[in-house]
């Protein structure tokens, strides 16, 4: 499925602030390119069909499931993964509040969940509880029952970083 009917091509994109060029089949999933070619294994595969959000990355400011993005579509785009959040104040605040509030249990959904939360707070720095529920509804978590994740996002928003 990944490789049929095409030959590899060069795809240039910016990943976590750095320009990268990868040689990949056009329909190869951005998820696989990030994980296998670029070694960015913080992006996880949960379902491979865009249901669980474990593979969430931020692409040109939008939250996307990287398992649904053919790499050719990412040509010229700016992609941010969990590894690229290091210096982002809002992301750092979220990482701290996830730790304090119990927002991460097994951790497999956590990178995607934090990216979804970063995206949410970028759009809505002072979200209501309904905003948080909606903003995270594309990211499944089987451990936490979400409540402590909501609390972590609300706490990070209260800290009002980067405003």
């Amino acid at each position, binding site marked *: 499925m990944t490789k049929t009917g095409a030959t590899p091509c060069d795809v240039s994109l910016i990943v976590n602030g750095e320009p990268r060029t990868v040689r990949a089949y056009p329909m190869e999933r951005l998820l696989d390119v990030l994980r296998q070619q670029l070694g960015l294994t913080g992006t996880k595969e949960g379902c491979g069909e865009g*249901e669980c959000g474990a593979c969430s990355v931020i692409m040109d400011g939008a939250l996307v499931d990287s398992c649904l993005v053919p790499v050719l579509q990412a040509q010229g785009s700016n992609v941010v993964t969990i590894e690229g959040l290091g210096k982002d104040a809002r992301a750092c605040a979220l990482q701290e509040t996830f730790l304090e509030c119990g927002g991460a249990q*097994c951790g497999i959904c956590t990178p995607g969940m934090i990216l979804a939360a970063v995206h949410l707070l970028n759009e809505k720095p002072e979200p209501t509880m309904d905003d948080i529920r909606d903003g995270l509804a594309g990211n499944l978590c089987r451990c936490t029952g979400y409540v402590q994740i909501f609390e972590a996002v609300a706490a990070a928003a209260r800290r009002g970083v980067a405003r």
Partner: protein
Amino acid sequence: MKSERIVALSAPRKEGRDKVTGRARYIDDITLPEMLYGATVRSRIPRGKIKKITFGPGINWDKFVVVTAKDIPGKNYIALIENDQLCLADGIVNHPEEPVLLLAHPDRHALPKAVEAVSIEYDSLPPVFTIEESERQSEIIWGADNIFKTYLIQKGDVDGIWEKADYIVEGEYSTGAQEQLYIETNGAIAAFDAERGLTVWGSLQCPYYVHKALMALCNLPETKVRVVQTETGGAFGGKEEYPSMLAAHASLLAMKSRRPVKIVYDRAEDMVATTKRHPSRTRHRTAVRKDGKILGGEIELVIDGGAYVTLSPVVLSRAAIHAGGPYEWPAIRVRAKAVATNAPPHGAFRGFGAPQSLFAMERHMDRIARAVNLSPVEIRRINFLKPGQTTITEQTINEPVDLGKMLDRALEHSSYEAKKQWFARENESGAVRKGMGVAAFLHGAGFTGSGERYLASVVGVEGTAEGRVRVLVSSTEFGQGTNTVLCQIAAETLGLPYDDVEIAQPDTTEVPNSGPTVASRTAMVVGSLVASAARGLEQTLTASGKLGKTYSAEEFRRACREHVAAHGRFRSLARYEPPANIYWDDQNYRGEAYAAFAWAIYVAEVTVDLATYSVSVADFVALQEVGRVLNPVLARGQIIGGVAQGIGFALYEKVEWRDGCMQNGQMTNYIMPTSADVPPIRVFFEELGNTHGAYGAKGIGELPMDGPAPAIVNAIEDALGIPLDSVPLLPENIFDAIASASNRESDARSPTGVR
């Protein structure tokens, strides 16, 4: 005695920072040099004899490593209880996902086509798919009678109660299969070399289960098999027994190819081929006095075990022991049975049988309430177990649990009475119906009966050359907080800062066998052993004069460093010692089933939409007594997460079966709760301050799975006024129930099942 400064505080999750930064390494994040990828060719029929296997055209088979049953160096089974489940089918298949042969290739993308290109011809045999078909025994698919295991629990004079009864209340309840749906699918990597033997890394709960299975399968001695748990992305029981199968497959491919082999299931394969919660059917017949006191009863419980025994006897045991709920039964007879069907084996899933039998019990309590014209609250209050009384296995309740008081508190938190009155008025009109439901339940912590005695777990605590303390256990972290809580216990015992304590990665060459990470046993049983091993470390240092009776953290570090410099590796081991005066009769299933029970009262508020028949949980109160809460943030997280899974079990998660095969093995059509579906889940702890476990902890992990389904279904019944006796309860099921209730009403006036 040191002041307790770490236990009962919300110490941060030990591996938390790696998880929030994406640095944590799960099995699919690991790649070894020269590694191949493995895949499994499975049966596609539920039952039959394999006639012929053909490797089809269009595939360069020379590039593939192929393993069949003939390549197995040792015994062709996955060692567990009965060893009846083969690692690879050898002539016969008994379920539609049975592994038949294995393939490996350097390119993981080459595998799906190759798997498709293997065709298997069969002589089909007649299959059995339901509990009822299995019971009829018209086709025998396992043993002499399709029965994996039976238990009989008897207390008091059951036959004498019926004539004293004012009411005899009967009911039949059922629960469906449920997929664990950890977000990280099952996976393992195996590597083999003749000198060092076999090493397996995997996403798993029980390293020593895998270790045992691989020794038998690969015909290797203990020292030539090494099992390492990698960061595990959720398990919930779903990585208790199945990883032995997956590790076995990766190992066979690695041994044949002499290259490392990784097998990671995609979501579809994980959902259809690996274990799920056992479907169940429970029948109750109860003798009740007119004041509501239960005089006694009979419970007949059957679980569908799938094609092989695996853990069904143990699941059945827990289901049977929990079948009477937290009530006093002067007389009871529980007949429990696990039967075979031609579906993939059902297995461990949080709660482990108790959610099934407690669903029946708690639905039945509401039915009894209606029969004797008492409220669901009063019927429970009248029958609650009290200290000094005995459970159905005649275990005396020795702790001062006051379920009546817990009930009062839960009702107060949920504004139960006020809402009942309010809903009674509101429900007379409008497009929605609202209801309140209660469930009372208990959950036994640790292995059942003599289980912990047989396990004889060993725990180590090490003082390192750097003066740090390391906990050595095979108990695994998969989100519940094992790492954190066990480090808290060691730090507390030694009076050290939490940051001075670390925990070893579970690796069978590094850590002793502290038993499997199951049965809500880690904090209570393993935690106690950690405390005891830590005390051993301290005693060695004080006895040698390196440490005074009281000491600072720096003095401890120095003493530790000196000890390692002088004597080398410095470890203290502690082995489980069964408490004195514990009585358990395995033959008659009588005695002290569990070292401790956790107790709980859950209250659900639901809204049923009469246009769509969908149910939403509007509010949820979870009140429990779990002994000492060692880490409030983690404990609360366990409860909320369990409640969310319970909501899924009750309202969303339906496995659609066809010919023994799950049809909806995708997250698209097997629906688990999302962030938009969960209600406010309000968690309250009672603490009795008992003496169980480390610093008073009892089990916590499984408890919250038991109560939500009955509380929710009781609330739906309260809203709609019709009995609903099975889960999952999807909108179409509610529609059908309303339709058949109105048909019944026109047929007859007496309520069903009540004499």
